[in-house]
């Protein structure tokens, strides 16, 4: 079992620690996919700090909950959550993207302790997560499969093939978490490939779906606990209304922050900014 946080203040601090460590980690590799990393910090805090069943001493425990970060370019936020939950030492976060290292920018289950599925080619995590959920059911294994999708990633047809499959096979142990941060690589999703009302889309595909404030740890926790408890044969989706680049003045509310460089000066400023939060 990982570290557990009792109240939402503690959980929010955990989210901000994940945020700061992720920024440090990306700084160590001179930059990264900052926007989509920062929009996921609250979700990571709720998953690893509160709701998930896992054991860092036994990371491949069969009946654990599993995470498929299908927007695999955001590896650093997951690495940060894993390190702070005891899967590997915090210092290793500073080896992000190093030659011969264990922390590649995109998630790799064969390189990093605690990563449950390899991702990086957008859309593919949807299918592997569906397969893992089906496998768990066939073997009568406990545990949820948490599938994290980007809102731009929803452009991939494969996501919707997986959605149809999940409904057909009654995968109520699959919980889709959409990071609705309103931007993809080239800008706002609306102007590139508008997915419309994402909650309604998943409903149309036979899912139970809700939309919550993705930066409220209480709201995220409540929605996840409720969705995971319902064993009604219906796969669930939570649309997390988030902001790309959330929680760092350099990126919050900005565009063009999908992937940015992080200089030493920027890092020094970030340290000051986070020092105020007393993490």
């Amino acid at each position, binding site marked *: 079992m990982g570290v557990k946080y009792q109240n939402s203040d503690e959980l929010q601090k955990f989210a901000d620690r994940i945020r700061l460590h992720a920024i440090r980690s990306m700084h160590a590799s001179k930059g990264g996919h900052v926007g989509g990393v920062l929009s996921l910090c609250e979700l990571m805090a709720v998953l690893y700090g509160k709701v998930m069943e896992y054991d860092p001493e036994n990371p491949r425990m069969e009946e654990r909950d599993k995470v498929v970060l299908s927007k*695999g*370019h955001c590896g650093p936020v997951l690495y940060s959550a894993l390190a702070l939950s005891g899967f590997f030492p915090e210092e290793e976060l500073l080896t992000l993207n190093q030659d011969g290292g264990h922390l*590649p920018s995109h998630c790799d289950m064969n390189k990093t302790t605690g990563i449950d599925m390899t991702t*990086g*080619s957008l*859309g593919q995590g949807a299918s592997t997560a569906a397969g893992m959920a089906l496998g768990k059911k066939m073997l009568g294994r406990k545990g949820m499969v948490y599938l994290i999708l980007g809102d731009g*990633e929803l452009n991939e047809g494969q996501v919707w093939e997986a959605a149809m499959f999940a409904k057909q096979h009654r995968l109520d142990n699959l919980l889709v978490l959409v990071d609705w941060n309103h931007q993809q*690589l*080239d800008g706002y999703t609306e102007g590139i*490939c508008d997915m419309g009302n994402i909650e309604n889309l998943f409903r149309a595909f036979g899912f139970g779906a809700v939309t919550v404030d993705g930066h409220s740890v209480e709201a995220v926790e409540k929605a996840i606990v409720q969705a995971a408890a319902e064993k009604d044969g219906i796969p669930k989706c939570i649309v997390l209304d988030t902001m790309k680049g959330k929680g760092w003045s350099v990126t919050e509310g900005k565009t063009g922050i999908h992937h940015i460089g992080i200089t030493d000066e920027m890092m020094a400023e970030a340290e000051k900014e986070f020092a105020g939060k007393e993490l």
Partner: protein
Amino acid sequence: MKQYATDMRTALADTLIQLERDNDRILWLDSDLMASSGMNKFREAYPDKVINCGIQEANMFGVAAGLSEEGFVPFVHSFSAFASRRITDQIFMSGIYARQNVRIVGSDPGLSAGPNGGTHISLEDMGILRTLPGTMILDPCDPVQLKAVTAQSVDRKGIYYIRLMRKSKDQFYEEGTSFEIGRASILKEGGDLSVITCGTVCVREALKAAEILEKEHIHVRIVDMFTVKPLDREAVLKAAAETGAIITLENHNIYNGLGSAVAEVIAEEGIRIPFKRMGVPDSVGEVGTLDYLLCKFGMDGASVAKTAKELIEKKS
């Protein structure tokens, strides 16, 4: 290394802007990678000629095939891994079998996708495309060459796959050098051995190897086989006859790319010379700097020079 005024992607955008003046059917389709392809510049010049499809490579290719049927000359772009592996059946059926005309631009080819790691490193893109019937595969090494071959491709029929080392400014050819698709270009003369290679990364390493060897009075020929398919068989035969030993060096799996294509010619012609394929030995990539990855797979200039000497020793 001489640097061109712009990087490869800007050279491509400039070329398309020029070509569009004579051929207003040229279109650029992207898959949420306009910021990477550098085509915002083309969009500024021709806003109606760019379609950013979103992250949906397979659909993008199919749409391009449909646009081709209506008489357009579509270019489609993604990272080379997704522009090949992810859309192979669409390329085959909607493109090749339906006899449509689409130019596929795959950026960050091979090990140059190192910062994005194993999922993005395409060591099989040329192999996949080479097996598909009738395709043309181009791996240009510098902006001068890229501009020339892109311009040539536009008036031709069929499926072209163009590798784009988008951020490189390395310049190997003088501005205005002429190239012909399907004809290799000799980058350096030499009689002791030929290095047949293609693309920015490997041309650079081949030149480094040649420099090392020159110091030891060994003179290698560098054959820039920028058209990997259809292969310039004549250039291979000449290299074999005139230098008596061949190394192929490619930013790709040694299977089914340039090395395999050259080996086929050598075997079919019954030529017996020392020959070695250099490239990635049938493995996946991983995150890393280009230099680290080149050394790891034995594709750096020093390794090429060493192999060259071993082969030259074996010449009878």
